[in-house]
């Protein structure tokens, strides 16, 4: 298409279909426009109404999630969520997916995912201080897994390391359901002053609309549409729609934006992420109730011959759109000149509530803003609940392996092996504020210049969600809560990254609805609201969907870093105390999967009341300085948890067997709401738990250089360590 034939391209039914709009939706387009759209306008409808931008299948259910608490400054709907952390400061955070691009081009897909989420955070006026991620790959022996894992990790490191933001945590799972559709979810936490937070609502008729950052190229056109469709064998051909990242430019953009934000020149600001200039300009105008006239020929362009269509749909990275106060253009431009970034006035705010696109003076598009941005389709898709599964009876186990052999097998399995190979490729120390490094329950960074700490974690157990979306949704939130508590943090709020299959299938939609219900219940019970999030649907390849994966990113506050806890046993620890009750839930456990080869059963139920009571008492014990060693019991159960504490502290332990009941269920059950605490003062801990109506019992003793069970069945720490640390490096070193 040459630049001047946008009014002559015929809008055929095929072209409409190629733009991902169904007949119903196109009818609505004709109604809103009152005429046939031209190609530029069709392209804009296409991306604005894509699942990725419009949340048309998920909106109805997202609205049910709790989003409020006294400390919430900004909930969902802005670039990122904002919570008050006291002393005039706020934590700004969000998690976002970049699944489809990362499967097609793992390095760039993951890198630009990290770049995009950092932009979301610094757009709000926050300096990013921590990155995390949640990754899911196919089974280890799938031919693509090594290539994807190595590319994704390199991409995340390549971008985050260059930006100078420490990557302090994350999680990685392997499962066959991700063979054709990996998940790459990136989270950023930033710090801002509560009186200097920036929003996206445009205001001030006649104010200049300014473009800053990188030039616009042809990369990523229709990325949002791609993210809203299923994969098939031809998806590799979509490689050109994957954006290319330039972390150096983003670093400059970060510093330039923060420098400008320290002045009083910005009215509104929005990053150009999915659907680029289209999405950013419509959102800013819609939120502010104003119109915009854009002069597309003024947009800084990377290549010659670009058309209005391409400029509106490009997803070139490292760009921002802002509205400045009148007369500030020169002073603002001087800042961007200093950082050697493009700065162009590309439009003005109007009172028409319409988006008028000009191309060398000619009208290239003219659309109403609100109907496009606000009246996008919303579907109440049919859904079916997931049938419940039976609880696993320990008597059904073969029990073919000794406890110690089972532990050795589990701790060297792809699910539980150390992720050191991954996180040592991320700079987790830059800025000099990292207090708890990756490999613990949550990462912790000091709030610079204070003695407070921000704790952050990402969590989800997809096999639980698959078996029971409601319990699995609760569990994801509860585990994030627990991981924060275990460091001594008060859990404050979450971001959710909902990764699911094709919502047009009632069974998949039922997973989504169930997970939302579980997440909502947990958020209310734990006073842990959702402040930001992202939905990624159509995670399917050739009709096979992923396990439902509502990844939860949690953030909490440690009020005094002098009193925090880590998972490693310490020299003066003696008694091991389990907090929380166990009935021996083996359904969907890693023991059942890895040792018995069974992926089945009801997942462990989550008692939210007990969860809250346990979390509250542990938070108090750590805050008072009575506990310095704490680890939540998660994948693999009690024995794996103690083994991880031993390895982290390089101190052994003995775990006691129960007087009655199944030893396997005791050692390997994945009952929720539990922690292991190590202390030299067990009475204080037991008393505190008892007065808070929380179950607590001494379950072992710290010491020595081996892990044993009831004084017997020993495994040395050095053997455990080589099993736990060995799997991933040797797996990645094998030839593909």
């Amino acid at each position, binding site marked *: 298409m040459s630049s001047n034939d946008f009014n002559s391209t015929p809008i055929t039914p095929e072209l409409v279909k190629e733009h991902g709009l169904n007949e119903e939706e196109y009818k609505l387009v004709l109604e809103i426009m009152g005429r046939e759209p031209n190609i530029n306008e069709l392209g804009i409808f296409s991306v604005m109404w894509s699942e990725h931008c419009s949340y048309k299948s998920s909106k109805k259910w997202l609205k049910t999630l709790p989003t409020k608490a006294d400390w919430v400054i900004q909930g969902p709907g802005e670039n990122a969520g904002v919570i008050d952390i006291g002393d005039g400061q706020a934590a700004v955070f969000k998690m976002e997916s970049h699944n489809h691009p990362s499967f097609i081009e793992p390095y760039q897909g993951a890198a630009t995912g990290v770049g995009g989420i950092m932009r979301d955070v610094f757009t709000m006026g926050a300096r990013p201080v921590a990155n995390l991620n949640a990754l899911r790959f196919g089974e280890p022996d799938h031919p693509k897994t090594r290539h994807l894992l190595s590319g994704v990790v*390199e991409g995340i*490191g*390549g971008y985050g*390391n*260059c*930006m*100078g933001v420490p990557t302090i945590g994350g999680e990685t799972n392997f499962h066959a359901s991700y063979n054709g559709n990996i998940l790459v979810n990136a989270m950023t936490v930033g710090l801002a002053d509560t009186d200097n937070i920036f929003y996206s609502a445009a205001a001030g008729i006649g104010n200049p609309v300014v473009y800053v950052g990188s030039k616009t190229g042809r990369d990523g056109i229709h990325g949002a549409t791609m993210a809203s469709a299923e994969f098939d064998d031809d998806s590799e051909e979509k490689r050109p729609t994957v954006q290319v990242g*330039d*972390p*150096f*430019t983003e*670093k*400059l953009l970060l510093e330039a934006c923060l420098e400008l934000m320290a002045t009083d020149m910005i009215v509104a600001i929005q990053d150009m992420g999915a659907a680029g200039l289209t999405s950013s300009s419509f959102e800013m105008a819609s939120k502010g109730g104003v119109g915009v006239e854009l002069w597309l020929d003024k947009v800084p362009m990377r290549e010659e011959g670009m058309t209005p269509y391409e400029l509106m749909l490009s997803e070139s990275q490292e760009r921002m759109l802002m509205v400045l106060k009148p007369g500030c253009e020169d002073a603002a431009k001087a800042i961007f000149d200093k*950082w*050697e970034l493009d700065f162009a006035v590309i439009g003005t705010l109007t009172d028409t509530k319409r988006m008028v696109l000009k191309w060398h003076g000619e009208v290239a598009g003219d659309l109403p803003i609100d109907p496009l941005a606000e009246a996008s389709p919303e579907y109440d898709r049919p859904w079916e609940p997931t049938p419940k599964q039976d609880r696993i009876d320990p008597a059904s186990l073969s029990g073919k392996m000794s406890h110690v052999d089972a532990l050795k097998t589990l701790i060297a399995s792809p699910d539980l092996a150390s992720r050191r190979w991954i*996180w*040592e*490729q*991320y*700079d*987790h*120390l*830059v*800025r*000099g504020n*990292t*207090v708890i490094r990756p490999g613990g329950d949550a990462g912790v960074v*000091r709030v*610079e210049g204070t003695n407070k700490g921000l704790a952050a974690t990402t969590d989800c157990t997809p096999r639980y969600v698959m078996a029971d979306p409601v319990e699995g949704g609760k569990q994801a939130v509860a585990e994030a809560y627990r991981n924060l508590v275990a460091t001594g943090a008060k859990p404050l709020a979450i971001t959710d990254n909902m990764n699911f299959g094709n919502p047009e299938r009632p069974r998949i939609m039922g997973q989504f609805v169930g997970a939302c219900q579980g997440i909502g219940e947990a958020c209310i019970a734990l006073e842990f609201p959702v402040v930001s999030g992202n939905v990624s649907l159509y995670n399917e390849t050739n009709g096979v969907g992923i396990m439902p994966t509502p990844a939860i990113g949690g953030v909490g506050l440690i009020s005094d*870093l002098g009193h925090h806890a880590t998972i490693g046993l310490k020299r003066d620890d003696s008694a091991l105390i389990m907090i929380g009750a166990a009935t021996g839930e083996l359904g969907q456990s890693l023991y059942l999967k890895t040792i018995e080869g069974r992926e089945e059963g009801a997942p462990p139920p989550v008692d939210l009341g007990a969860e809250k009571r346990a979390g509250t008492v542990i938070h108090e014990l750590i805050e008072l300085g009575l506990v310095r060693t704490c680890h939540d019991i998660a994948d693999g159960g009690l024995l794996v948890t103690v083994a991880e504490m031993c390895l982290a502290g390089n101190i052994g332990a003995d775990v006691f067997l129960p007087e009655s009941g199944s030893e396997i269920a005791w050692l390997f059950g994945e009952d929720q709401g539990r922690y292991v605490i190590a202390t030299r003062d067990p009475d204080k801990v037991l008393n505190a738990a008892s007065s808070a109506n929380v179950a607590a019992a001494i379950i072992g003793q710290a010491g020595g250089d081996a892990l044993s069970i009831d004084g017997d069945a020993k495994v040395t720490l050095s053997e455990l360590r080589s099993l736990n640390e060995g799997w991933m490096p040797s797996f990645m070193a094998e030839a593909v």
Partner: protein
Amino acid sequence: MKSAVILFPGINRENDAIAALKQATGTEPAVVWHGDTELPKTDIIMVPGGFSYGDYLRCGAMAAKSPIMRAVAERAKQGVTILGVCNGFQILTEAGLLPGALMRNASLKFICKNTHLKIENTDTRFTNLYGAGDVVDYPVAHHDGNYFADSETLDRLEGEGRVVLRYCDVDGKVDPATNLNGSQRNIAGIINEAGNVLGMMPHPENAIDPMHGGTDGRNLFKSMVEAAS
């Protein structure tokens, strides 16, 4: 005691460098922009880590041609104490203030972890507060820390006691197994002929606070300050 930190576009450990200099000198260091042509009066200059110019072309190559580097070279000649860490080391080699070059890690991967280092020469203005044969623990965080120089240069560096730090194990053993990134002769840090310019890949500025897990890096900064006062 005055110090200065040079800031190039893409540098990202200036925060850490400033904290370490402030802790050691008691005063806030001056931050000097790469486009400036003059340095303030200063006793210590630090070129921090990061990704100057995105590491495009070659790590440190473009920063080495920045206007401010002429002034830094001039101060080097005058004997001012200059410390380049990580990307700062790469910049100093590219600027010709130190011999050799930093290549991609032998693993071809970015490495962020704590490592043991042997202080090979305690008779420098950067290390005189350490004891002979001390083994210290600093973190590294780099993709291109594999030190290379021809064997003639290496022999000369060794002969003149200019190899200041080497990668080793907890007992100070220096061998291929303790070579973190493939560096020639496990070299982690070297000084110039006059002894006033140190370049090193590890980050002593990230080992100055108990919260960092150790404070072995403090003595490096203290040594510089004492020598310069």
